[in-house]
């Protein structure tokens, strides 16, 4: 059985349930399992939860409860959450590799041809580890080793919403026209963040993503 997570206070209005260690699917799966368990059985005073790679933040109303109560509730849920089997939700996202200003540069950096870069990228199975950086920015882990390139020395502007970008083991689909130092290798018309949709955010942490090549 995996070791119990550490509980760390974040001021007086949140606790971090920290499973520790390196980024891994197994650890992130524990984060996701606890997150789901808390959503199904929230403790009194819980405001929201924020899953990340290896830790879950639980934000609460300090006028209603306190960190010790929240943490005790979470650790109790953890015992049952850990044994639950789950089939992750899967999404298939179409990508056009024509709107790809950095495809050549990635090919050069990895010693592959552009077509090989595309084939490797399509081969990957990606997992939504967490959101961060900006609204709707879902960190998709699972870029194949052969495609892993460090991010650029500085961020660049001018990439449209829906840009498919990579850096290191991560892939991401942009939801805002924000500057990025990641490599733009494609574009998707899939809308990750649509504020008027019943579920504004397309992915949940723990979901599995596959890409398919879209017709131009």
């Amino acid at each position, binding site marked *: 059985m995996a070791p119990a997570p550490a509980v760390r*206070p974040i001021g*007086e209005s949140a606790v971090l349930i920290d499973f520790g260690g390196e980024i891994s699917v197994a650890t992130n799966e524990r984060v996701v399992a606890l997150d789901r368990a808390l959503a199904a059985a929230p403790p009194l005073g819980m405001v929201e939860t924020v899953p990340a790679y290896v830790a879950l933040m639980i934000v609460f109303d300090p006028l209603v409860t306190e960190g010790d109560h929240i943490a005790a509730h979470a650790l109790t849920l953890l015992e049952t959450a850990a044994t639950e089997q789950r089939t992750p939700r899967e999404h298939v996202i179409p990508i056009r590799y024509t709107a790809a200003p950095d495809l050549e540069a990635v090919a050069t950096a990895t010693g592959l041809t552009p077509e090989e870069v595309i084939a490797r990228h399509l081969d990957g199975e990606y997992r939504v580890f967490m959101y961060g950086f900006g609204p709707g920015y879902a960190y998709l882990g699972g870029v194949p080793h052969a495609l892993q390139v460090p991010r650029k020395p500085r961020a660049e502007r001018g990439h449209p919403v829906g840009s498919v970008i990579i850096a290191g083991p991560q892939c991401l689909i942009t939801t805002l026209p924000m500057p990025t130092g990641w490599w733009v290798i494609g574009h998707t018309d899939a809308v990750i963040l649509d504020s008027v949709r019943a579920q504004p955010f397309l992915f949940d942490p723990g979901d599995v993503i596959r890409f398919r090549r879209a017709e131009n």
Partner: protein
Amino acid sequence: MNARIVFEAAGPLTTIQDRGRTGVMRFGVPPSGPVDRLAFAASLAATGAADGWAFELSHGGGIVICEEGEIGFALCGGGFIGDIDGDEPQAWRVGTLRRGQRLRVRAGAGNWAYLAFAGQHAAPRWLGSSATHATSGLGGGPITAGMAFDFTAPRPLEACILPPPPSAEVPDRFAVVLGPQDRHFPAEAIAQLTQAPFTATARFDRMGRVLGGPPLVPASIAMPSEPALRGCLQADGDGGLTVLLADHQTTSGYPKIATMIGPDIDRLAQVPAGHAFHFEVIDAPEALRRTRAAASAHEAWRRALAAPGRLDERLWSNNLVDGFIDATRP
């Protein structure tokens, strides 16, 4: 009759803010909402719009003209002063703007102020809130010169000056709880946090405020991105500290040595650039006690602002101002 307000000038950080959005930090969306929550709440209480929104202004100030009708307003926070057609400028000002009159707002000693109006206007909403996420401009949105706002059911307000809340005094100590990543720092850095003087710098926006002081260099910055919260003191690789504010990123790969307690965060955001102070490390139960005491004092303050009768008399007769001091500075 409706009232129409037009911005003739608006400083670069002017936005619409309501109390903020919850439940979407998990998707990368911070709460946003006012940087100074108490001053914001005072502006709404004084205009009778408890669940409404206000314009948030910063150093650039702003000028609004009433083009139609008449409407009450409240200008609260940061020592920002307002004059109507050049009359005596005053902070924490409540009054009525009549057709053709201009309210000019200028910065005071603080950094953020709230201008609320006594009427109804449906500001744009995004993900359930009109709070503006400044980086994206989503929500109620940024304000630029020329923008007009039509208010229905406008009400005039009797002119008065709200007694400045005692929290407007500039504190020289701010309380923090260590963590969540204090273990990434050497013992000397933890000692420096409690002993060294820090300063509030002029480098701030709605995401955070850069602090001056000794570098608190983490032993390593190799950590997975972890969730972040308003009030976290985040160290970059060189040990420079930033306190995270309303529009903070929801996760970050930089270690957070400590987290400020709720009521102190907004006060640090308001202190003038160059102000020196110390951090006081307290434990989570003490942080909880102080936050609850501050909240009950804030609530009493808001109730008094919203009650009928002469405002200054109500506040002073209830001794709320003194009570407020006692509650937040034990």
